[in-house]
């Protein structure tokens, strides 16, 4: 299976430069459907699912590789190299805001600009840093993942995984955008919420835009400001919206902010 099939890569649009949209923890590339099409006129738009999410090849999931954000950064690198991307624009939501810089460290020519939507480098409250959560809250999230398999069950799995040639079988099922193998969901949750990425922020040298919702519980404004301060020369755009996903709740404002930055 090729990298492009493995990560269910979709390329659309026209333009010399590429924009690669990386989804965050929880759902898949469908998260971009209100935002990405707006850039297809001027850019080559690349959408993908991380291995373990969406319609990626779940059999390619290796707990050791995806036990840290570096494994997810490898997905980004491999897709970038497969498509021959250079000087691309990386748009990352949530945890992807921290995955993009890891990929850039490995290949500095890959991206020349980055957009971080709702970034948080560290979710845990610690001394004078307010990440917003305690470790017990992350355990609580893991318990909720156990209580909400979102349509994933042992009998469903073979239907979803065993018929790659009949995607409509998976399509018909509710919650398909956020459905993941519970084991993978648990590991990705741990990696997302228990990886401290604060130290890598000052090393970011490419022009970076931080998009911050005015009311985001997961990545509160104070954290967005922290990220903005740590990345020299970065820009911050505030969007009047509630929640962690302005690309769904306020797509027009999100598109405008990205356009202004580009």
């Amino acid at each position: 299976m090729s990298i492009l099939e493995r990560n269910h890569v979709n390329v659309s649009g026209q333009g010399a430069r590429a924009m690669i949209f990386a989804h965050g923890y929880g759902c898949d590339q469908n998260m971009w459907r209100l935002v990405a099409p707006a850039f297809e006129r001027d850019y080559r738009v690349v959408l993908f699912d991380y291995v373990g999410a969406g319609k990626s090849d779940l059999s390619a999931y290796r707990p050791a590789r995806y036990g840290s954000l570096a494994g997810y950064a490898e997905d980004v690198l491999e897709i970038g190299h497969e498509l021959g991307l250079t000087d691309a624009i990386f748009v990352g939501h949530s945890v992807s805001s921290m995955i993009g810089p890891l990929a850039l460290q490995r290949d500095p020519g890959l991206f020349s600009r980055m957009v971080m939507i709702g970034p948080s480098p560290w979710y845990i409250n610690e001394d004078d840093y307010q990440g917003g959560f305690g470790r017990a809250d992350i355990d609580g999230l893991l318990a909720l993942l156990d209580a909400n398999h979102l349509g994933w069950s042992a009998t469903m799995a073979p239907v979803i995984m065993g018929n790659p040639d009949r995607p409509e079988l998976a399509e018909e099922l509710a919650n398909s955008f956020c459905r993941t193998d519970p084991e993978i969901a648990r590991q990705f949750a741990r990696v997302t919420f228990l990886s401290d990425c604060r130290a890598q922020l000052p090393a970011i040298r490419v022009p970076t835009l931080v998009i911050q919702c005015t009311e985001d519980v997961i990545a509160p404004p104070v954290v967005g400001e922290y990220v903005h301060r740590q990345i020299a020369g970065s820009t911050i755009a505030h969007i009047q919206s509630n929640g962690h996903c302005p690309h769904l709740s306020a797509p027009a404002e999100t598109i405008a902010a990205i356009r202004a930055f580009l």
Partner: protein
Amino acid sequence: MSADPSDDFELAPCGLLSTRPDGLILRVNQTLSSWLGTPREALLERKRFEDFLSLPGRLFHGTHFAPLLQLQGFVEEIALEMRRHDGSGLQVLVSATLAKDEAGQPLGMRIAVFRASERRRYEEEILRSKYAQAEQLAAIVRSSRDAIISISSLGVIQTWNEAAVRLYGYSTDQAVSSPFSILAPDNQAVEDQAFLARLLGGESLLFETQRRRLDGQLVPVAISAAPVRGTDGRVVGAATVHRDMTAWRQAEERRLLMLRELTHRTKNLLAIVQAVERQSAATTTSKEEFHERLSGRLRAIAASHDMLLACDWRGVAVAEVLRSQLAPFSEINRLRIHSEGPALQLNADASHNLALAIHELATNAVKYGALSGVTGEVFISWGLVDGSAGPPIFELRWSERGGPPVAPSSRRGFGRVVLERIVPSALDGSATLSLEPAGALWTLRIPARLLEPLPASPDARTMAG
């Protein structure tokens, strides 16, 4: 029922609320506001649904609930924990729909909240016992000495334990997601397809076969395989247990070899007994003498057997052959029997024959020779000598001194046949028996290849006796 239809909303047995597009609460029923312990006025247009969630609930809401609601327009049966005014938790199941106007613009959400404390507790108990069971099973699989490999209904390897890594050489990462057929030897692809088809057709199988390791080597294994069924009864994969049969095969081969050897030896032994009986009958004059000579020779054969048994039918030290045969005689003659030679081992056949010869020599020595009087002595020596222009030779000499003068006629009969013909010819060698007046001298020369193992150095001499 009350006459006021709004009571159906206010007092519904579940929490109901609706919101504006920005999520702020537009309407909330009395049921929910009393569950939360918060007056309605403090909720309307000020709070959002997610404000009443626990922190883990907000994480789940932000990463799953809200995006799903946006993407597919509804969510159903999501388990969450709400926080009441007094800080206590409320386990709930939540369903929500997104309301849109005709242009597709969001109007807000409708949310229904059901209490689910009992159900959540029950589910948590099931989950806990599921994890405990899974952990127990995982511990068994981890520590198993047999390889345990599970495969999907498509024949793809899904789990691969430590024992599988040891048996087949593939790491877990290499094996998982590979087809089960990576283990099939080239000539077995067809059989393997048939095996998989039967297994996934619902049959349990137990068979022995060969599998190919990562390094290409074939390894004999016993495979026990059983289909794994989903809750609907369909076969969703299979669990296979692979036992390495290499050691068992080797033991089995050794057992067969020994069985053949035993049959061969038993036949030989009976032939020897028959010859001993015939010759003893021909060379004795009385029934008593026949009985005495025959039982003595049978004892010698028995002692030689004990010796071979003790060393598992492998080589026996020359000194040990002498000791076993001379034991009945050396009790009173210990100081009169001298033996000397290097630590050499004879193979089973040679030691058996040498034992017979020593028995004859000792019997004769006690009856007529050096050990029959009070002064005579026996000297036994052995070692390797260079065969003239041939392979090395093992030589053993038995010489008697100081006994009564030897009468040439006293050495007749079967003893002589054994010493001059039977033993040397059985061992592909030669022997001479000279009956000089000073005492008997017997010299046996046999090929050194009958030694086991072949000696590294013929100089390694040691005293024995």
